[in-house]
């Protein structure tokens, strides 16, 4: 009789625990909004961008001209202090150093790239932090994101961006940019950062 009582006690406790677990889940599931697919895609893309600090790109500008770019997000020494910034290099000799909040210096390049907005070039080159931050902010605010046919669209400071996402991984593989004064597309590839690469890019010497 005593053993039976113990089983009744344990069985009843299990039922109560299961009820709390099940009811709690059902209440949350039925009352709270689930994030949209666009929000989840933005978070996945941002995670890819944050994971890789180096992005290689092939950019096609509106006039059909093709450029190769490499954007590295790293610690750089700016005005005697180590800060997080981005270095963008294009194969036409253009080099951009962007260290928030005040430093934005561009050197070299052709007349075409010099005439373009640095932000537009950074976006097209897939500079990770610029894109990741915007995606994270929009995901958190749950607005301004549109997902259709594996393409994620959003606005960033006057530019309209569309990321083409890899079907299986959700990683951004292409960028289409439309701005009032420029347009272009790019294909991007994430590259692991190595010490050798950093030295090649001249980051350690800055």
């Amino acid at each position: 009789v005593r053993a039976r009582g113990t089983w009744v006690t344990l069985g009843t406790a299990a039922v109560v625990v299961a009820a709390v677990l099940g009811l709690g889940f059902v209440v949350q599931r039925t009352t709270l909004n689930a994030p949209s697919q666009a929000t989840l895609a933005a978070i996945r893309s941002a995670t890819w961008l944050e994971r890789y600090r180096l992005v290689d790109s092939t950019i096609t500008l509106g006039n059909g001209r093709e450029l190769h770019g490499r954007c590295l997000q790293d610690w750089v020494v700016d005005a005697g202090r180590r800060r997080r910034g981005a270095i963008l290099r294009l194969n036409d000799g253009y080099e951009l150093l962007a260290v928030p909040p005040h430093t934005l210096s561009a050197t070299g390049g052709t007349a075409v790239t010099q005439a373009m907005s640095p932000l537009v070039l950074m976006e097209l080159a897939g500079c990770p932090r610029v894109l990741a931050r915007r995606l994270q902010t929009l995901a958190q605010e749950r607005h301004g994101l549109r997902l259709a046919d594996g393409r994620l669209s959003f606005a960033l400071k006057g530019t309209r961006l569309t990321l083409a996402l890899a079907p299986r991984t959700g990683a951004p593989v292409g960028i289409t940019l439309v701005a009032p004064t420029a347009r272009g597309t790019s294909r991007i590839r994430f590259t692991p950062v190595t010490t050798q690469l950093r030295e090649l890019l001249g980051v350690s010497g800055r």
Partner: protein
Amino acid sequence: VATLEHAGSVPLGLRRADESARRLRAVARVGGWWVVGRAIILVTAVVVHNVGPTGWIRLVSHAHALGPLEAWDARWYRMVASDGYVLIPGRQSDPAFFPLFPIMLRAGHAVGLGYTTTGLILSNVGFLGALLAFYALTRALLGESMARRASAYLAIFPFGFAFSMVYPESIVLGLIALAALAALRRRWGWAAVCAAAAALARPEGLFVALPLAVMAWDQRHVLSPRARGVALGAVLAPVAAIGSFSLYLGSAIGDPMAWSQAQRAWGREFSPFGFVHAVDGLGRAFARDAWVTRDVIAVVLYLVLIAAAARAGVSWPWLLSSLAIVVLPLFSGSFDSVGRFGLLAPAAFWGLAALGRDPRVHRVIIGASLPLLAAAIVVLPLRFP
């Protein structure tokens, strides 16, 4: 027979009338203190809205007279209520905020109220309910005079401004008290519901499991096997409730531990040496933001009050659960917000009530609490609670 029945019913009726009158007086007394505390907070919030300081709270929080009460974390609760959860790795995100309060905000919104209005009503009216439940629990455990003082002190406690913000503290305190009351009265089904709901509103709700476990053990000989099972279920209900949150996060955003991950972005990561880090990093924390002093004082105050409760004979499960509420957050490496977390430690207020037995101490507590409560609202725009 008729005479005997009549004779027996008179004292019973009188007793019931006495009991009703006593309850009415208790409600009036507790309600009176609630009015005093909330009036100070609401009036000061209106003054802050009109005169300042502006502080760090967003412009939107200055848009109406009670704006400061919907600042800081209230924004996150509103976001969860309106849009649900997302976890943004490495950034502060909303799974750190438990779901019961946002669900209640949604319920208010569904009947036509704004999220902020719903939150302010829930917190402030909920606090009246919480005070009454806390009074009843204290009376059952420690007697009438302790219950009177403890509920009065809680109503005007300086950190208690959080009970008027769009935060879940009022609801959690009420649920903790109701869970324990239900357990004392052997209504273990209700105890399970309240304990689970408390844990679904804030992680501190988990710690009510300890007093419930001891009550269940004490009642084991008078409960039937099935009732014992419900009691055991009630003890485990807070863990199950947090499990249901994990289950939901796993299904909605693909990460069952998102609530724990999100805490890390706030600099809260539990480790065995977290307490050492919290104390060790106090100098740096103070250099960065001197307001941390307020939370350090809160920790010391709560510990002193829990010690006073121990001296007053409060039972060990309550002491231990209250101690856990105050001390465990320090193992995340930070003193931040402990002043608010400690509001859910009942033993601290029983300790305060024990100290208040001395009429001079009683006057000091009342005299200090009222201006400090107003001051806490004045500085609310400068530092998160």
